């Protein structure tokens, strides 16, 4: 009896094995979209940071056709408005072709998702730019994070070389609507109020006062804009 049971078990085990394990290994993501780009040539070394983050951070990119690639090591260059990824297979830092991207996400250590969108900017120096989406909606609050190389007082770098330039942050903020375009906004209460009619300005002031929001920095501006969007206060933009 014990022998019979053993044979039956073996028979079924064999049946199961043939039906469930007859799979040949084909690499995962074998047909995934390939990233196209060009080799990063290191930027000139000056004080300041030409990148948004100190190091490569985890992130994902989205192509214009909607396909996404996750788990990439990304770094956004605020100096050249480029997104760079580290290809570990060939140990290369590659500037992803901006034209191929719809946008990208950076996952910072703090656990925040920073979303960037590739949009056409029709103002001064028109062209496609990566805008960080600070608050999305009918009228989105966007930031164009850029760093400019400017002359400064002479200094010696770590290697003792005399330098007279540095990377300086120059962040610009915009209100954006797909039909109306871009409207520049600065950090400060007055700049925000100027986007509303007189009657609505009072409402905004009251809203900010009641919620104890002061627009002294970027987070204050974001908080204020979120609140305005929630309360649906119409802008003059």
């Amino acid at each position, binding site marked *: 009896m014990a022998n019979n049971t053993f044979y039956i078990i073996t028979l079924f*085990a064999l049946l199961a094995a043939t039906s469930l394990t007859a799979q040949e290994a084909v690499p995962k993501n074998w047909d995934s979209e*390939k990233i*196209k780009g*060009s080799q990063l040539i290191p930027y000139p070394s000056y004080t300041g940071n030409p990148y948004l983050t100190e190091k490569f951070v985890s992130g994902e990119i989205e192509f214009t056709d909607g396909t996404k690639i996750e788990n990439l090591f990304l770094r956004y260059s605020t100096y050249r408005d480029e997104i760079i990824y580290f*290809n570990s297979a060939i140990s290369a830092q590659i500037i992803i072709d901006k034209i*191929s991207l719809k946008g990208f996400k950076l996952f910072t250590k703090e656990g925040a998702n920073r979303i960037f969108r590739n949009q056409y900017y029709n103002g001064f120096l028109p062209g496609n730019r990566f805008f960080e989406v600070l608050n999305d909606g009918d009228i989105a609050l966007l930031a164009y994070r850029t760093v400019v190389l400017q002359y400064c007082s002479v200094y010696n770098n770590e290697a003792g070389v005399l330098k007279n330039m540095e990377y300086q942050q120059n962040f610009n903020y915009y209100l954006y609507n797909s039909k109306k375009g871009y409207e520049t906004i600065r950090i400060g209460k007055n700049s925000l109020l100027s986007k509303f009619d007189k009657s609505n300005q009072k409402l905004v002031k009251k809203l900010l006062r009641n919620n104890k929001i002061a627009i002294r920095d970027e987070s204050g501006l974001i908080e204020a804009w979120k609140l305005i969007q929630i309360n649906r206060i119409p802008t003059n933009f």
Partner: protein
Amino acid sequence: MKTKFFIVLLLFISLLGNAQQKENFGLYTDRDLYVSGETLLLKLFAPLNDQAGIVHIDLISCGGKTITGIILEITDHQANGAVYLPDSLSSGSYILRTSTRSDKLQTVREIYVANRFAGMPESNSVSRIGRATPVAETEMGNSPITGLEEHYKRREKVTASIHLADDLLAKTEGNVHVSVSKTAPGYNGGTFCISAKPTTDQLIEKDGIILEGVVTDLKTAAPFKNSVVMLSIPGTTPGFNYYITGDDGRFFFKLKKYYGKIPVVLQCYDKARTRLLKISLVDSESLRSGFPAFETSTFPTEARKEVAKNIEAVTIRKIFNQQEIITLPAPKPQADAYPFYGIPTNTVDPKLFIDLPDFNEISHELLPGVKFRTYNRIPTIEVLSASLHNYFNEPPLVLLDGIPIQDLNIIKNLGSKKIDKVEICLEERHFGDLSFAGVVAIFSPKADDSLVPESKDLIKLTIEAIQAQTVLNSPSEQLPSEPDLRQVLLWTPSLKPAQTITLNFRASDIKGVYKLVLRGKTKDGSLFFKEQSFEVN
């Protein structure tokens, strides 16, 4: 007790592995009897749980030889298409077979084709499918067809209505299919399901054909690991992809959403550039193995007479150049916004300059940052890095009509007249894990693969991709002097189900018994039909 539990558990696991596919395709044709040179129309209902986005339909002789095949796109679990029956087909039974890479069950439809020139064979015996399971379908009794008379005159207008019962309407999945075509007295080609062996790689053709092949060492014939296989689709905006082989030397490419005939070039090279390789494609037919058993049977005498009439009708239609189907324009694949090798730094049209005899002269006179030289009859090419202001140590990617070129002798003799334009990228480019030290893309006026020779490591092929949509050519008015020899009076592959479906069509000049058929599929996967015959005399 424990042993019993294990037995039951193992039985469950083994059954789970085998019982993944119970449903099969429903495959229907406009008729059962054909004449070579005609076009067969087909409708297909896919299993609701099938993940495949495309289905292969093959026309196979009763001897097992594949004559032709088409690939159809499955939309909402349905597909329809047309198969041209070559004039060279000999008279006999043929099968149409559906297959996907993952099917364990395939559907075959039996048809008879008579050769237009040789006619029917003298013998009455014919090979027919035997011992196969017919595809189950249910006739819907509670869905009457009204307005359809028993007899019509030739060219008379016919109006009929099909009334779908509420319960049927509620459980119908997707669209229904309606056709009116001539029947073959005494001959019914059936639809059967047969078992097949699915491919073992578990790849599903969701949105395009999968090309599969293997790279071997030219000397040892062993599968070659770490070879770079490149696929190019030549053209003005060339398509490109690559695959790096594993231990088994196999490679796969997916051709997404391509319609009609497309030229494809496949080539491979050793990553270390030390070994000579051979590339070969896996015959896609070998991936679709199912074939039913045939047995000898007698061909009905009435059907023989019918075939003789059909041959005459088809010949006259050919003389009057009456097209059976109209092929709708295929959706063009969305062209990439820019070439895969990047936005060129420079684009040069040699025809705008003085006529230069060869590429050496062209590079020297017209191409900034490109150094093409021939030393001891060996051509070399170098590209300048615009940012480093130095020539790259590695040779650039050289493309001829979008096809990567390893042997520079191919472009050596190209003069101004043979080149439309040259695009140059003076930077290190990356495509996935491939790196190119600059790019020189040459475009010839032909923009095809004709300038690139085939070799052991390069194969050129034309692929019949997804078939473009076809519709029945039913002229609204036929000239009185011109015979109307249509055997298919109506072919509506996708009709939105409604309580009352009204049909309008016109009888042709061909006398005989016709059948109006409605077919559909319910949400539980079962096939249903409703049919009614009428006579044209």
